[in-house]
């Protein structure tokens, strides 16, 4: 097999891995959109905030230390202990649940029955708030996130694929972290599907997603469901934040992955969990292959910034509800 072809395959595989990461973020969007009709722009910032909190708890940072120092003139920064990873993750999950409760109490409760666009704007406001708040709480510098997943090329994959090419081919390069992310994402999706199919709460979630009023009339508490959904979305955000954070450091650009997830959603449809996965894979592979085949040689590179949006745009013209979205029926 020729070297170009093998390199193409490697790009394809890496695209798949990137796609898994996109799908992970898109999943959080779909969960909230299905159950409350809210397009939650803050999902990306939630991932950033979750990752910041995890690092902060892990390394024993004192919350708001920058602000305290600025106001009181003290020089506090660390508690001086390191929390074990598992405990830190549990505490972070606790913080995200608390966050969900606060969002429900302070924002969602007051915005019931508003138009979707108003709710969307509210989540943009929430995103801004959370971004500022997270930076105030934990500091804005780039943090290193280490939860024990090895990084760098996976040697097993390299050794076992080296036979495919000639003497100068050393096997496919895949980041171990990406492989972990793919496995974790698969586990997460499976458990979410099982949860929503086989538990009482899951059934209630699906009922709310189908019809708010009907769900209310059979005695499902909408507000409890919202707290649960936002907590799950917070958990998904934590997973996404940890994966991206371990890959490229916990920093502001983490919140921009939300923007990457948007074309994934358009492609897959806002209401479909399989859609989010398939859409993520298509976008991940598509943008890497486009950059490899057309972008870098002919267009000067960096096409990854817009390719996903253009693909989604073209796609939507032919299928406005996305790949797996419910058919849009409009009545006057």
């Amino acid at each position, binding site marked *: 097999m020729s070297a170009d072809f093998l390199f193409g395959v490697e790009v394809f595989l890496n695209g798949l891995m990137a796609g898994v990461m996109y799908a992970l973020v898109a999943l959080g969007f779909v969960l909230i959109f299905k159950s409350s009709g809210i397009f939650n722009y803050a999902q990306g910032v939630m991932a950033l905030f979750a990752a910041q909190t995890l690092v902060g708890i892990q390394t024993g940072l004192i919350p708001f230390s920058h602000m305290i120092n600025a106001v009181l003139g003290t020089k506090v920064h660390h508690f001086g202990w390191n929390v074990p990873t598992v405990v830190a993750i549990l505490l972070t999950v606790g913080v995200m649940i608390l966050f969900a409760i606060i969002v429900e109490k302070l924002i969602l409760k007051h915005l019931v029955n508003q138009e979707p666009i108003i709710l969307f704007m509210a989540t943009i406001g929430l995103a801004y708030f959370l971004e500022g708040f997270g930076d105030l709480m934990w500091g804005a510098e780039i943090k290193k996130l280490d939860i024990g997943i090895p990084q760098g090329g996976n040697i097993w994959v390299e050794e076992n694929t080296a036979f495919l090419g000639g003497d100068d081919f050393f096997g496919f390069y895949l980041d171990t972290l990406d492989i972990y992310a793919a496995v974790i994402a698969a586990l997460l999706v499976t458990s979410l599907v099982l949860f929503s199919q086989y538990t009482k709460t899951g059934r209630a979630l699906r009922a709310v997603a189908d019809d708010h009023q009907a769900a209310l009339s059979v005695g499902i508490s909408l507000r409890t469901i919202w707290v649960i959904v936002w907590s799950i979305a917070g958990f998904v955000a934590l997973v996404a934040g940890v994966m991206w954070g371990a890959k490229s450091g916990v920093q502001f650009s983490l919140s921009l992955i939300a923007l990457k997830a948007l074309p994934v959603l358009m492609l897959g449809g806002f209401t479909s969990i399989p859609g989010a996965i398939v859409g993520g894979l298509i976008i991940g592979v598509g943008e890497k292959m486009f950059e490899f085949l057309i972008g870098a040689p002919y267009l000067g590179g960096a096409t990854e910034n817009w390719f996903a949006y253009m693909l989604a745009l073209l796609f939507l*013209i032919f299928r406005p509800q996305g790949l797996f979205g419910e058919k849009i029926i409009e009545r006057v």
Partner: protein
Amino acid sequence: MIYREVGDFKTTYRDDGQTFPIKFDRLRYYVVLAVAFCIVPFIVNDYWTNAVLLPFLIYAIAAIGLNILTGYCGQVSLGTGGFMAVGAYSCYKLMTGFPDLNIVFCVILSGGITALVGMLFGLPSLRIKGFYLAVATLAAQFFLVWLFNKVSWFYNYSASGQINAPERTILGVPITGAGTTAPVTYLFCLVFVVVLAILARNLTRGHLGRSWMAIRDMDIAAEIIGVNPLKAKLTAFGISSFYIGIAGALLFAVYLGAVEVGEVFGIQKSFLVLFMIIIGGLGSIFGSFAGAAFMVLLPVFLKNVLVGGLGWPTDIATHVEFAIVGALIVVFLILEPHGLAQLWKIIKEKLRLWPFPH
């Protein structure tokens, strides 16, 4: 007591349909115009012009533009930053390509070019609706910024990738470039703002504006009663982009002077203008001004209080600003989803009955 329509008799349909039916409002409008044109230019200094007045005027134009599209026609757009970049770069190309062309025409023509680009990106709106469209306009945002970054023809092959406004004058007075003075740039922008705002007000209450609002309220019903959705949506995209393009051109040529596309016209700009029209009020020209004023003044105010008053470091002040802006937007949406314009309307209603409400 003075604020009511009693005694102000309208004898023609023209009088009946005027923008300010109450005499006091008309008076106030002329006073504001007179102050803006005759008094402000003589008292402004460089700080006030650059920190507050110019951004306010320029963003007011952009906010009116986005309000036409989102507030009046109901098509949510997140591509404002990209369209402003089109305005800025076409203004730059016109200024350098035709050195003799008057700067006024440069700005208007760049608005026209942006309108064409806007209509092109507005085409999908005929098929896609709601959130899907909002995300689709992000395609315009990212693609346009990438384009202006990659194709060096747009920045005349300069090594830095920046565009710099050359000096252009009107009647010998420099409008752009290094030799400008605060009152001149202020007046130049003010003229554009006033003309465009009056134009927008009259467009939105005429035939075109009504067809936009019909599309916004329910597009299928509008289609059935005879509104052509193709025409309504594309004109909304075109005219909105025209305004946004002019705002971009003014932002680059008059206000900043030098622009790097990713920094100035990024996605944050799209959100900034969107915030302005939400806080100001969707579907209201006054709201566009109020929102622009609010979003321009708030950071200046916070910076003065936190950095100047309390002596906090600037990075912490920036984070606090983010948190406060975000929280304010949420609070606004909860208390008054229709923005400052609605508050203003409520105050006016109260004023009409004051001081004897019963």
